[in-house]
């Protein structure tokens, strides 16, 4: 209050603000002046807060401007800011009184200039390619004749008309149109949703699942087509289980969905041509196959008829077939007996050989058995026992032998002595000694004659003297039986009788 009473200095009559007043005024000023601005800048640091708000710096070589995109807006931005990106940001300026700061609240963000856009596209392409989203092995074969075709495009305009016309010309099909925005912020999410939505339909359901999807859009600037470069669209196309043809822009425009699609068509019309074959051509093909079928069949039958005719002409008479066989039978019958005999002979021979082998084998076996038995018994023999016994008996034998020879010698000597004594006695007692003394021995017919009667009956008489024998003829022829005996007696009977008497 006292301030008001102060003497007025230079400018002392100027209004004095509170900080809040001034800050509020500045804020109104900024927001009024810059309620809608477009700023071309390079994106600096980017921070996505947990709250979902997106904070980033916009800068050039000399200044930095803070920018924010609130949660709801951030999701709707055509592009997501990345550091180094050249952008044009559209929004309104606002001041933040609490910190004496001002910032741009971004409502739209677009890439500045073609070069920058292309650089971004290239970066994204490389990243997605590195993930394998464009790999050739991911590509699915298009159905040869789809029953239902799903078209993702704007429901009005030339594109859908071109597709339907060309389909009608070639092969009228059932077509399901999934309407989408084909440019602008809504484009990418709607296209992605449409692709996934078609895939989620049940085959043959109330809304049948298509056999083929065409994603189509007419020509436009790079910015117009930008939705088809967005990652969510590219991923949806790559993940689609239903084969997908992309036909976005003109032939010279290549978007990332073209790389992820199973087939890229240069135009929507071309997409329809890739989608279905030409019905009339197919009809012609079916007709042609039918004609070939009939031709082949009649040729089959014709050829067989021809061959049947040829063969039946070539058939020989039945008799000629039999002749050869009959002849062979005869020849075989002739040879049969001889062959049988020869065979029997051969077998008999063989039997002989075999039985010889068999016998000798049996012998060998028995021999071996006997040998084995012999060896076994020989092993059981104990020669030591035997030789001990033999030695004992040998000694006994020697003893007995010695005894025998001693006894023999003794006996022999005794006998010899006895014999000598007897011989001497015999010498003394023998009639021959008597003969020397004048006696004689008369023999008749070889026998000693001791009487007349015997002498008379003997046919021949012999007288033995000491020095020899003298024949004396027949005693009976003399007639005087007494005389010879006397004579004998005279000559020899005395000593003879005496010798004999001594002898007996």
């Amino acid at each position, binding site marked *: 209050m006292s301030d008001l009473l102060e003497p007025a200095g230079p400018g002392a009559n100027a209004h004095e603000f509170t900080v809040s007043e001034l800050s509020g005024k500045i804020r109104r000023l900024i927001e009024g002046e810059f309620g809608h601005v477009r700023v071309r800048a390079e994106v600096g640091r980017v921070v996505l807060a947990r709250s979902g708000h997106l904070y980033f710096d916009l800068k050039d070589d000399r200044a930095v401007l803070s920018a924010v995109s609130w949660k709801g807006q951030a999701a709707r931005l055509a592009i997501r800011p990345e550091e180094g990106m050249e952008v044009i940001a559209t929004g309104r300026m606002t001041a933040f009184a609490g910190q004496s700061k001002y910032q741009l609240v971004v409502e739209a963000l677009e890439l500045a200039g073609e070069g920058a856009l292309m650089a971004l596209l290239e970066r994204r392409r490389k990243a997605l390619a590195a993930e394998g989203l464009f790999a050739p092995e991911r590509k699915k074969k298009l*159905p040869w*004749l789809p029953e239902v075709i799903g078209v993702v495009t704007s429901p009005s305009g030339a594109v859908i*008309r071109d597709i339907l016309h060309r389909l009608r010309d070639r092969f*009228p099909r059932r077509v399901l*149109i999934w309407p989408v925005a084909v440019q602008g912020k809504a484009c990418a999410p709607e296209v992605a949703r449409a692709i996934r939505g078609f895939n989620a339909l049940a085959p043959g359901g109330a809304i049948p699942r298509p056999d083929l999807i065409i994603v189509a859009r007419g020509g436009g600037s790079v910015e117009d087509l930008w939705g088809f470069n967005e990652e969510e669209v590219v991923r949806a196309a790559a993940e689609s289980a239903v084969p997908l043809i992309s036909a976005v822009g003109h032939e010279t425009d290549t978007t990332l969905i073209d790389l992820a699609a199973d087939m890229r068509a240069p135009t929507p019309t071309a997409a329809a041509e890739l989608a279905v074959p030409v019905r009339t051509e197919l009809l012609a093909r*079916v007709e042609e196959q039918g004609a070939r*079928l009939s031709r082949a069949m009649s040729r089959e039958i014709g050829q067989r008829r021809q061959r049947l005719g040829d063969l039946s002409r070539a058939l020989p008479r039945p008799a000629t077939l039999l002749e050869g066989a009959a002849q062979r039978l005869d020849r075989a019958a002739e040879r049969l007996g001889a062959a049988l005999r020869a065979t029997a002979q051969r077998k008999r021979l063989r039997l002989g050989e075999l039985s010889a082998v068999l016998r000798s084998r049996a012998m060998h076996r028995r021999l071996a058995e006997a040998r084995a038995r012999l060896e076994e018994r020989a092993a059981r023999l104990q020669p030591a026992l035997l030789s001990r016994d033999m030695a004992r008996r040998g000694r006994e034998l020697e003893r007995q032998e010695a005894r025998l020879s001693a006894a023999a010698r003794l006996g022999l000597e005794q006998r010899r002595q006895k014999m000598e004594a007897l011989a001497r006695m015999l010498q003394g007692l023998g009639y021959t000694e008597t003969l020397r003394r004048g006696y004689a021995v008369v023999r008749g017919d070889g026998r000693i004659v001791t009487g007349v009667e015997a002498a008379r009956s003997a046919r021949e008489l012999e007288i033995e003297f000491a020095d020899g024998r003298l024949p004396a003829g027949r005693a009976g022829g003399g007639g005087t039986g007494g005389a010879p005996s006397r004579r004998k007696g005279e000559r020899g009977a005395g000593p003879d009788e005496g010798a004999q008497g001594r002898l007996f």
Partner: protein
Amino acid sequence: MSDRKISEMSFEEAMAELEAVVERLERGDVPLEESISLYERGAALKKRCEAKLKEAEEKVAAITLDAEGNPAGTREVTGF
């Protein structure tokens, strides 16, 4: 030879088998009995192909979406 019912075949399947049948028959190394049944099958396949081609019919519908953007039904589209 496929034992599949011809009436369940798609045009492509029927056409492929028809072509195979024609080719076999044209080679002429099939026994007569078999060639007759081949011919009969070929004729049936041809009939199936023609039927599939004749039933070709244009029907265009647009998907209608509910508030969440999910398909709710279809709407006939005419006038193209």
